[in-house]
């Protein structure tokens, strides 16, 4: 089992001094991922977005690993090109090391504008890890809704108004879309659970084909919570089953974390300004109830998938 003492000995490949907001969940995730990836040499790509802006404003760079940024929708397709170049160099004996390619993109760059490039790269089975640092909206451009934004959230393009309660659709299930590509490894996690995250990074990097991590990263700016609440909210997301930690490997689903007591969703929603409009009104309560129903349904569905396609089912 991974120990914090061991991770702490690794080199900080995502250096301090970058321009992320205080309490940025994404910066935490990237730092943890690059700690966990060691000692494997990695070459990375990233989509346009918060991460690119806060880590790479010329002449500064937070990246102690090779990094290329091209455009918004292109984390996966850039990685495809890098991976092809690596395969060429490897087959020609120009490189001896086993290099791993990691693509970073936010939820906008993954669920929305980059979905086609991601699908193509997964289908072609490039060996790379795609990390979606998911803060559930377009935070870099000022908190616009994405297809990862949850039902009822107040964003600048799904604003809570006199008629509409915020976003009126549920979020897209990107994990199932990715899994439908028969990937080598796919997992969902979040920054509070550092061991879960680090283990999944290592599994994903060692998987024999394309792999995917969906990492929930609380965003103080967009979720409108205190910077000091980032890690607690990350934990509450799992404890309410809003964000189940699970993985998909060799055709099997495995839930990695079951809360001892499944907390009501309101515990997760209440500290966040994006859900504040839902509290204190009858209409708001109905929205919360619908969101709770959706979370429960998805959680039950996941447990059934585990029962049907999990290790238990394999033994039976």
């Amino acid at each position, binding site marked *: 089992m991974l120990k914090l003492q061991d991770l702490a000995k690794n080199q900080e490949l995502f250096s301090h001094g970058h321009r992320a907001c205080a309490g940025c969940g994404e910066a935490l995730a990237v730092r943890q991922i690059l700690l966990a990836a060691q000692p494997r040499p990695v070459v990375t790509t990233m989509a346009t977005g918060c991460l690119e802006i806060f880590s790479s404003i010329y002449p500064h760079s937070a990246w102690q690993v090779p990094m290329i940024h091209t*455009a918004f929708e292109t984390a996966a*397709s850039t990685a495809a*090109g890098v991976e092809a*170049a690596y395969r060429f160099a490897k087959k020609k004996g120009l490189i001896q090391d086993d290099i791993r390619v990691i693509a970073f993109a936010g939820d906008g760059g993954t669920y929305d504008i980059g979905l086609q490039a991601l699908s193509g790269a997964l289908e072609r089975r490039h060996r790379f890890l795609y990390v979606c640092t998911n803060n559930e909206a377009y935070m870099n451009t000022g908190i616009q809704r994405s297809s990862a934004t949850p039902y009822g959230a107040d964003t600048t393009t799904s604003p809570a108004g006199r008629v509409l309660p915020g976003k009126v659709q549920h979020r897209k299930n990107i994990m199932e879309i990715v899994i439908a590509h028969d990937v080598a490894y796919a997992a969902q996690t979040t920054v509070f659970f550092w061991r879960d995250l680090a283990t999944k990074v290592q599994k994903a990097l060692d998987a024999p084909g394309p792999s995917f991590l969906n990492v929930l990263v609380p965003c103080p700016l967009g979720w409108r919570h205190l910077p000091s609440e980032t890690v607690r909210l990350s934990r509450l997301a799992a404890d309410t089953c809003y964000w189940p930690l699970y993985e998909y490997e060799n055709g099997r689903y495995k839930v990695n974390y079951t809360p001892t007591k499944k907390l009501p969703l309101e515990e997760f929603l209440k500290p966040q300004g994006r859900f504040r409009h839902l509290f204190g009104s009858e209409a708001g309560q109905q929205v919360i109830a619908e969101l709770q129903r959706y979370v429960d349904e998805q959680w039950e569905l996941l447990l059934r998938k585990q029962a049907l396609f999990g290790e238990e089912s394999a033994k039976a």
Partner: protein
Amino acid sequence: MILAKTGNEALAYAMKQINPDVVAAYPITPSTEIVQLFSNYVADGEVDTEFVPVESEHSAMTACIGAAACGRRVMTATASQGLALMHEMLFIAAGLRLPIVMAVASRSLSSPLNIHGDHSDSVASRDSGWLQFFCETVQEGYDTLIMAVKIAERAYLPAIVAIDGFILSHCQERIETLEDRAVREFLGQPKPNYNLLDWRNPILVGPATLQDYYFEFKRSEIEGMRRALPVIEEVQQEFGQRFGRYYPVLEEYRCEDAEAVLVVMGSACGTCRVAVDQLRAEGRKVGLVKLRVFRPLVHNLLRTSLAKFPKIGVMDRVDAVNSYGGPLFTEITSVLYDLPERPKVFSYVYGLGGREFSPEDARMVYEQVLSGKKDELVTYVGVR
């Protein structure tokens, strides 16, 4: 070797001989065959290339960028809507100074949909920072694609080699190919600016820049384009010395004492040569100025050449809708503006969507330019 090949076959064959490290491509008429034939070479083990059959042209160009940033020799091919879909990434390839070489079988842009040849696609990519070559024949396409690899790698800029869709891409011509070894020796190994895979020496490619640095990056890219012209001339010279086929950046055909010339790019140069020969036989003083390099714009060469002629027709196989004449016309009139005595310059738009442009059409244009009288700003040749 002497072979009969269509433009697409010839470019695919050139790609085989170039043997690029990575090719990422997507099919589109009329360039599909280039990629298709190339994938046969991959399937038969005739090339060492890592072939990435992507899910769109956008990803084709992006994967090319990723691979080229790893210091590899990278190629692709496309046309029309495909080139339009790549548009965003074209600027990024050039901004990152990556010598990607792309064969384009030039085709019109929708709507309405039309699969045939004109220059709408390449010319729409004019300001993306790519070198652009327009070829007259299949032979020229073959030779230019090989030269473009060396030019791009020396200038650290990406290059488009355009052959007219269907007119050249699907038309069989007699071509003289080079030996595989000769191509290899001519090209040598690329000397990349940087290699992302060198993980022990990490670099950041494609950072964000603000008001304090963006302009300097762009300025240096512009300078790179300016310095590409001597590189082009040098490589064309080397190619000529080695293989006996010389390609000037700008060619004057039977322009001695010409009273009227047409400036033309692409396959219509051949058509105009026929018209020039006929008119010369009749004692008319006409000539052809063939522009082979569209980017960088060779303004000094154009000015020196065109200053000699009193009447000039500029032929655009594309319209810049509601601009002051065709795209090449506006550039050429700008180039000539500083001359103490400016020639008369006329704008012609022809051949959109593959509309036939015959020697008779060319003759008609020459007659009008010779007359020195034209009522409308742009004459649309052959439109009903």
